[in-house]
């Protein structure tokens, strides 16, 4: 936050700590204190996660949760990635990481694409019943996923997709469409209708206008949709644990199986490394695209 500045030189004061200034400083101090508490609250666990993941087991057993590692080692990371036993196989997380990628990337791209086209149609090409369709989609956002587990299970079995990555992709696409549609529709409402009309007179059709005129206006909302969808699908546990089998299980299920296994000593350093690996893709996505995300979330709040 930039400090308020004054361009004109101030007249000399009797003391630098005027009542007004001391009040401002107090406010500032409270602000920083609050920020520090919040930062500690969120960064603390991450610190423990990272520092523990580089410690050896004896060091962990010796206590000192907050201490930095004495003899840093990358062995827990190597184990977590390629050697840890999950269930009955001992190949680490790498296979499941691959599963998650193969599931999340197409599911995110497809659900964002369909949501964008839906939103565009609902916002700019009103058809009879459009309001009903939109209301139904909005309602779709409020259906708890637990409610649909049984019907989805039956559906996937009927389609022969139960336990497969394709089945998970299908489910994530379907349950991603309501939120992406709503997101895009609300954004596209702000695209001037005259643009669509001008393009129609110029001879462009539904998809030409979408790809050449509407979509190029929407990078921020596309990023918001991508991040929301990727985070949601990557982190999903319920669908993953319900509809996958050991060979198609994504990261979340593998991590749970690793951390909750009851064999032998609990290797906290490996668990911590595995957790960071599981969280890494969403973290990286936020770091790379975060500023677009913030811009997209506030788009429309202030007329640009």
């Amino acid at each position, binding site marked *: 936050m930039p400090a308020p500045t004054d361009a004109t030189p101030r007249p000399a004061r009797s003391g630098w700590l005027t009542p007004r200034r001391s009040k401002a400083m107090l406010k500032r101090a409270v602000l920083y204190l609050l920020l520090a508490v919040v930062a500690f609250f969120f960064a603390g666990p991450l610190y423990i996660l990272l520092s523990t993941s580089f410690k050896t087991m004896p060091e962990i057993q010796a206590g000192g949760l907050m201490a930095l590692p004495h003899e840093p080692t990358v062995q827990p990371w190597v184990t977590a990635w390629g050697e840890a036993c999950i269930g009955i196989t001992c190949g680490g997380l790498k296979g499941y990481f691959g599963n998650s990628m193969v599931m999340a990337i197409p599911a995110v791209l497809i659900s964002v694409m369909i949501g964008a086209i839906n939103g565009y149609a609902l916002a700019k090409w009103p058809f009879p019943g459009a309001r009903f369709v939109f209301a139904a989609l909005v309602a779709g956002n409020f259906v708890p996923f637990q409610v649909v587990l049984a019907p989805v299970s039956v559906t996937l079995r009927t389609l022969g997709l139960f336990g497969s990555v394709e089945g998970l992709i299908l489910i994530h696409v379907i349950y991603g469409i309501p939120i992406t549609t709503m997101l895009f529709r609300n954004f596209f409402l702000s695209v*001037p209708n*005259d*643009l669509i*009309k*001008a*393009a*129609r*007179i*110029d*001879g*462009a059709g539904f998809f*030409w206008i979408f790809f*050449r*005129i509407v979509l*190029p*206006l929407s990078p921020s909302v596309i990023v918001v949709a991508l991040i929301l969808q990727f985070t949601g699908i990557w982190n999903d546990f319920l669908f993953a644990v319900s509809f996958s089998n050991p060979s198609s299980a994504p990261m979340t299920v593998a991590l749970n199986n690793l951390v909750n296994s009851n064999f032998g000593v609990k290797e906290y350093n490996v668990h911590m490394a595995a957790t960071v690996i599981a969280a890494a893709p969403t973290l990286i996505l936020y770091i790379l695209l975060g500023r677009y995300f913030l811009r997209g979330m506030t788009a429309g709040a202030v007329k640009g």
Partner: protein
Amino acid sequence: MIDIRISNCNKNYGSLRVLKDINLEIERGEFIVLLGPSGCGKSTLLHIVAGLDRLTSGAIEIGGRDVTDVEPKDRDIAMVFQSYALYPTMSVRSNMEFGLRMRGKPMAEIRPLVEEKARMLHIDHLLDRRPSQLSGGQRQRVAIGRALVRDPRVFLFDEPLSNLDAKLRASMRTEIKKLHQSLGTTAIYVTHDQLEAMTLASRMVVMKAGEIQQVGKPEEVYHRPVNLFVADFLGNPGMNFMRGHIRLDGGHISADIGAAILPLDGYAFEAAPADGQAVVVGLRPESIQPISGLTSGGGAFTLTLRPTLIEHTGSDNLVVLAMGDEEIVGKFPTDMLPKLGEPVTVGFDLGRLSLFDAESERRI
């Protein structure tokens, strides 16, 4: 040759009747201005001609072809919007090329065409800019350029100058007029600005509440309004209205407006007046002048009135005159200004008078 024919056109939004039985024939090369207050349906009518809105019943013909169910792109029209509607992510050049590319014209033909029209509109140095880097006037030029390159049969303008400041509006108005004179393309132009309508139109169409009130040449509509609405809508300052009644008196017709009796022997009645008929007499401020300023004939009629207020507009001076219990406004040249409160002899140009039935509000 009829270029556009609008027949029995109706448009309803639910129970709201936006257009009521519109019939209009537009000749090739005409510049038609649709004029009316907001909500009168003029924009809707334009959108229906463009094909952007469906009509509820009726038919539209363009160039002798029934286009009622034809897509906008196949109607051979181009449109200029109030908001300019330039594609924000494309350069000026791409904006102007877009329509032709959509029609599959080869780039080798498009390029010189776009550059020619850009030179014509003095925007050739802006071709590589984005719309956001242009001023309002430049944006509107680009929007007009985008319509021009298409070389359509009909130009449609939807309040194209309303977003510009007053000075720019006046110069763009002149340019649009010149453009139409050199191209001779049929145009329909929607505006709520009567000055634009008066200066641009070869014929103007005054609308109110979804109905056409009057169609005619600007001076005809201005001087011979068919009803009180048109008379009141056109002109700034507005027409003076004086209530009174007709007197038929041994072959002489006059209107008794209380403070005076106006002889109407020279008036071209559209319907035979009845003795005692309640009427509204309309007279524009420029027809109320100091006696020596009157130019047109039609019988000089003078009254001595007391000025109560003088407004200077720069080019003219509006003098408010007390007449009985009412006030009327006259336009006085600067060198003939009366003094406030001192009665002055005022000439009424009765040749420019309009007479309306008080009940039906129609011209008689």
